């Protein structure tokens, strides 16, 4: 049982990072518009995040240095500051979107307008970050997030036209009524959603908070290779549900309620209750991750004491950054900005910020001063470098595609 619980960091990172408000909507949206034609992007993204999260976790476990320490050491103070500005902004936008996502999930269960829930959610979020220990936090939200497995059940219960979906998944290119621009835009958004930088910030900092050492490398790998593929599976199930229910009818998806509808259609009230619980846990987990990551990035850039292992008094600057970030996130939502639109923007901008985060990880993962004989294998390096090329292409393409297609039209 203890072994089983040891993978909760990976599960929380994956549920919160992989299946957050952005993916819940983006996967559903893509499934509705493209069927399974973009399913391959999810697979490419899962492998990519596995490769880099494993490296980041390994560096953190052996050297005790989380990702943003590496960013500053390897890129120097100026470039790292640019990365900090970008990453912090993206993380803040995501945090805001996640708080909105939690509020939207509660709205589905209560029909009380989400804006009324936003301040309450933000307060509870802050209390959890202030008071609750790292491990119980990670277990409660990681494991509750598993409720989203109901999408896999619903997908099978929908009795999908397997051959047709397989055909879609194996053809490269947009369907009728869609062009290459929107196809590219959604591919970039899905890839960025899978590789969002805050996932490695959180995962590596969490590894330090849990005091991982060289002995925990197996746990670290199990976390990565169970957590992220699980997140990918859930993403595909969400996409599949939308592909079966919405795509034939030509319905576009842009609300959380629509994402849940296929589950209600097949599994009824119980399924619906479970899926809303899953939404709540996944978005709240992601809000915790992004809230902490906002503090982690700033504190790690400047070298301040951070984390939940010391008295809050001893990490006053870190806790202040977390608190201010939550307040900024709430302020953005209270301008009545649509949380879903906020998420979409954060995905595009995180695509731009990706290379500056992943390059230092790759460099340090080959540094014997940090890792001794645990440096990257040749195979990992081949994968790492190939992904860096992909990441660069995505980063360059993101903004032009956004402008060209008007956020996917």
């Amino acid at each position, binding site marked *: 049982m203890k072994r089983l619980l040891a993978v909760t960091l990976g599960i929380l990172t994956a549920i919160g990072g992989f299946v957050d408000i952005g993916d819940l909507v983006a996967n559903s949206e893509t499934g509705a518009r493209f069927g399974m034609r973009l399913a391959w992007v999810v697979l490419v993204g899962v492998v990519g995040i596995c490769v880099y999260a494993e490296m980041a976790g390994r560096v953190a476990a052996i*050297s*005790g*240095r989380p990702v943003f*320490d590496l960013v*500053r*050491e390897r890129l*120097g*103070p*100026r470039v*790292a*500051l640019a990365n900090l500005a970008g990453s912090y902004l993206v993380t803040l936008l995501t945090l805001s979107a996640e708080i909105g996502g939690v509020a939207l999930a509660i709205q589905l269960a209560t029909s009380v307008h989400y804006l009324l829930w936003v301040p309450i959610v933000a307060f509870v979020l802050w209390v959890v970050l*202030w*008071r*609750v*220990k*790292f491990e119980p936090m990670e277990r409660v939200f990681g494991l509750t997030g598993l409720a989203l497995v109901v999408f896999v059940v619903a997908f099978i219960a929908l009795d999908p036209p397997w051959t047709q979906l397989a055909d879609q998944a194996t053809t490269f290119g947009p369907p009728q009524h869609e062009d290459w621009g929107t196809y590219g835009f959604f591919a970039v958004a899905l890839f960025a959603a899978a590789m969002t930088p805050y996932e490695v910030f959180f995962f590596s900092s969490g590894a330090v908070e849990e005091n991982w050492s060289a002995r925990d490398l197996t746990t670290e790998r199990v976390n990565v290779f169970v957590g992220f593929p699980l997140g990918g599976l859930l993403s595909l199930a969400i996409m599949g549900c939308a592909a079966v229910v919405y795509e034939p009818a030509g319905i576009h998806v842009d609300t959380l309620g629509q994402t849940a509808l296929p589950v209600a259609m097949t599994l009824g009230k119980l399924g619906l209750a479970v899926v809303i619980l899953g939404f709540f846990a996944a978005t709240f987990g992601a809000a915790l991750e992004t809230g902490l990551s906002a503090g982690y990035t700033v504190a790690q850039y*400047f*070298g*301040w*004491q*951070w984390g*939940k*292992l*010391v*008295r*809050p*008094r*001893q990490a*006053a*600057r870190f*806790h*202040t950054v977390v*608190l201010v970030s939550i307040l900024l996130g709430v302020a953005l939502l209270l301008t009545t900005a649509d949380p879903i639109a906020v998420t979409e923007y954060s995905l595009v901008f995180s695509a731009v910020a990706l290379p500056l985060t992943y390059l230092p990880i790759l460099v340090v993962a080959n540094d014997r*001063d*940090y890792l001794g004989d645990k440096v990257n294998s040749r195979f990992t390096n081949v994968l790492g470098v190939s992904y860096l090329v992909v990441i660069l292409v995505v980063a360059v393409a993101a903004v032009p595609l956004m402008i060209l297609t008007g956020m996917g039209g």
Partner: protein
Amino acid sequence: MRIDFDLLDRQIVDLDGYLVGKADDVELGVTEDGRPFVAAILVGQHALGKRIGGLLGRCMAAVARRLHTTGDPRPLRIPIDRVADVGSAIRLNVRQELLDTPALELWLRDNVIGHIPGATDAGQ
């Protein structure tokens, strides 16, 4: 050892693993036979701002100086003989209580975080 690659921008931790800051800059000295050596490590946004340079760097340094309510607005100076070893972090042979607490940390502790219930509860 190369200063730029092995020392600068590295995390500094104290005897117990408490995070002190980054090696934002170094102070060089010259031995009697004219060879340069690292005399001390400087920590703080004053030093960092100077290294970053430009308008942004000047602003950062100015803010850091302004935050000092007492004493000399200078970065924290850690003499090199306080360094136990340099690995993935720069490990000191003293506890952080013996070093000056950075002004920003002190101010936020006394005026913001310290006022919230639970601020002094043991780490988690």
